């Protein structure tokens, strides 16, 4: 019994790590900016494309293979700095104070534009850069061979979760962000530069998306359509956890991953449906997600 449970457990955590990266940035951006960024999935896939391209280039150029590890992180950072501030300063900033419909549409327009820009820049063929995966080797757990890279990702996801918490609780910028989350008007009145906070939060969201994409590349292929697929998964996880709840996203990733892994092991026909069935079940009971709450209006 234990023999079969261990792989389930490892697979669930490995999946949860990848899923967490997909959703955490989306939910973080929502918590600060109160905007659901529909283009989040595209930023994830751009991160993946940049990382895969750089990885392939490192190998092709004959540079030391270990360079592919820092390249993953640097690709994500590069993507975040390239897109985060520009998008926030122009499109997103324009939508502050506008209705949700406008915000969703503007980011949907951005999604469409980014999807085609990716095709133009990175081509339409699927690419694969697995050097980091190959370098780390394998381990056997419960009779099944896993990639050490998969296990490392679990650790990295936990580290990012803890890091985010520490950043928000301990650092000056983090505390200011938390203040903006708690009450935007009051923090503005207290002299916090909310515009700057929005830009920081959005860029951080892009960084997390791009990092998720980059970290996924060594074990997955990158192809057009990744952004759209990623987006719905991110929606689902963020909705289950409660929009704007970083810890909620972590818990939701584990729940979705467990559902997906159970489906693949015991009911393969349901694997693609599993995340959405879980989401529907959770939302029927808790419409604002596990950790979320709806707003009430004062008169």
């Amino acid at each position, binding site marked *: 019994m234990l023999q079969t449970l261990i792989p389930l457990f490892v697979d669930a955590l490995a999946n949860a790590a990848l899923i967490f990266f997909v959703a955490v940035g989306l939910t973080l951006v*929502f918590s600060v900016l109160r905007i*659901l960024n*529909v283009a989040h999935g595209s930023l994830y896939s751009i991160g993946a494309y940049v990382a895969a391209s750089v990885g392939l280039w490192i190998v092709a150029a004959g540079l030391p293979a270990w360079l592919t590890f820092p390249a993953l992180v640097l690709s994500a950072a590069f993507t975040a700095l390239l897109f985060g501030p520009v998008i926030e300063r122009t*499109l997103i900033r*324009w939508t502050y104070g*506008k*209705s*949700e*419909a*406008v915000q*969703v*549409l*503007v980011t*949907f*327009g*951005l*999604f*469409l*534009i980014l*999807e*085609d*820009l990716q*095709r*133009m820049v990175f081509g339409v063929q699927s690419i694969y850069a697995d050097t980091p995966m190959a370098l780390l080797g394998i381990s056997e757990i419960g009779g099944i061979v896993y990639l050490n890279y998969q296990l490392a990702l679990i650790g990295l996801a936990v580290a990012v979760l803890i890091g985010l918490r520490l950043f928000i609780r301990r650092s000056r910028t983090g505390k200011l962000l938390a203040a903006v989350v708690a009450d935007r008007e009051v923090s503005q009145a207290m002299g916090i530069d909310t515009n700057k906070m929005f830009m920081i939060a959005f860029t951080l969201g892009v960084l997390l998306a791009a990092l998720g994409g980059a970290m996924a590349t060594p074990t997955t292929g990158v192809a057009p359509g990744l952004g*759209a697929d990623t*987006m*719905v998964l991110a*929606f*689902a996880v963020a*909705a289950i956890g409660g*929009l704007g709840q970083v810890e909620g996203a972590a818990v939701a990733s584990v729940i979705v991953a467990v559902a997906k892994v159970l489906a693949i092991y015991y009911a393969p*026909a*349901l694997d*693609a*449906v599993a995340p*959405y*069935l879980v*989401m*529907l079940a959770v*939302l*029927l009971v808790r*419409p*604002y997600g596990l950790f979320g709450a*709806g707003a009430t*209006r004062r*008169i």
Partner: protein
Amino acid sequence: MRALPLILAAGLALLALAPLAAPYLQFVLTVAVAKGFAALGVALLLRAGLISLGHAMFFAVGAYAAAFLAQAVGINDFLLLLPFAVAVSALAGLLVGAFLVRYRAIFFAMLNLAVSMVAYALASKLYSITGGTDGLRIDVPTLMGMSLEKAQFDQALYYISLVLLAVVGWLVHRYLKSPLGQALAAVHTNEVRLEYLGVSAWSTLLAAYTISAALAGIGGAIAAVAIGHVLPEYAFWTESGHLVLTAVLGGIAGIAGPFVGSIFLELIHTVAVGYAAEAWNLIVGVALLAVIFFLPRGLFGLIESAAGVKDHRGETEL
């Protein structure tokens, strides 16, 4: 004010004549009108300030209902397929709406998306019922018992769609002017006051939601028989996004807006496929942003200005 009905009538006449000048446009326009119905449904909800990121689901429900009746049950007459598809999608709208119209803003958008993704996943997974990702085929339906050649049927379908566009458009116009329709915009501007008038925002919205699902169902049924095939991707979230986009591009203030948006997009698409297929999404995305930034009333707003309409009272802004 007189000019507008004339322009609308002229537009409809132009649509009716277009296939004579360019026969290949008939199919494109049929699909455009079909999607226009779904976009009109989305526009209804936008008037109440609700953005549905899942309405393609009802388009798909209408399409699948038609395909199911035609292929599995074997009743394949368009005049039965259409009401059946509309009834099924309206029922689906009623059931889903009863749960969803309690929510506002981004939660409404997300929950619609959630339900539509379940529908999408089920349609692609229930291989034995829905044909999985292969979808279902629809043979050329009969029309009031008459078997027609595909070409004749397509032509009939196109003109039936135009008649529906006029009739349904007029009905929806009446609905929007009625107290029930006006209450829709009132939900958006002041839900508290509406409740204090003794009006249930929930039932007001549920009525709109059901109507919007039925409209999407009309579109789904037309598209299903026009294309001859229904597929899970009809319900994919990007399709829902495109419906919202179509509605906003055309303008949500009038009935004609979503149809203008839909026809405009399909025509541009037809041209772009030949020259800029790679950049199609890019073009649409930029057009969307341009409309939101510079033409908040959509393309139809341009037509209205041309017609000298200046009175925009009682309209919902996005």
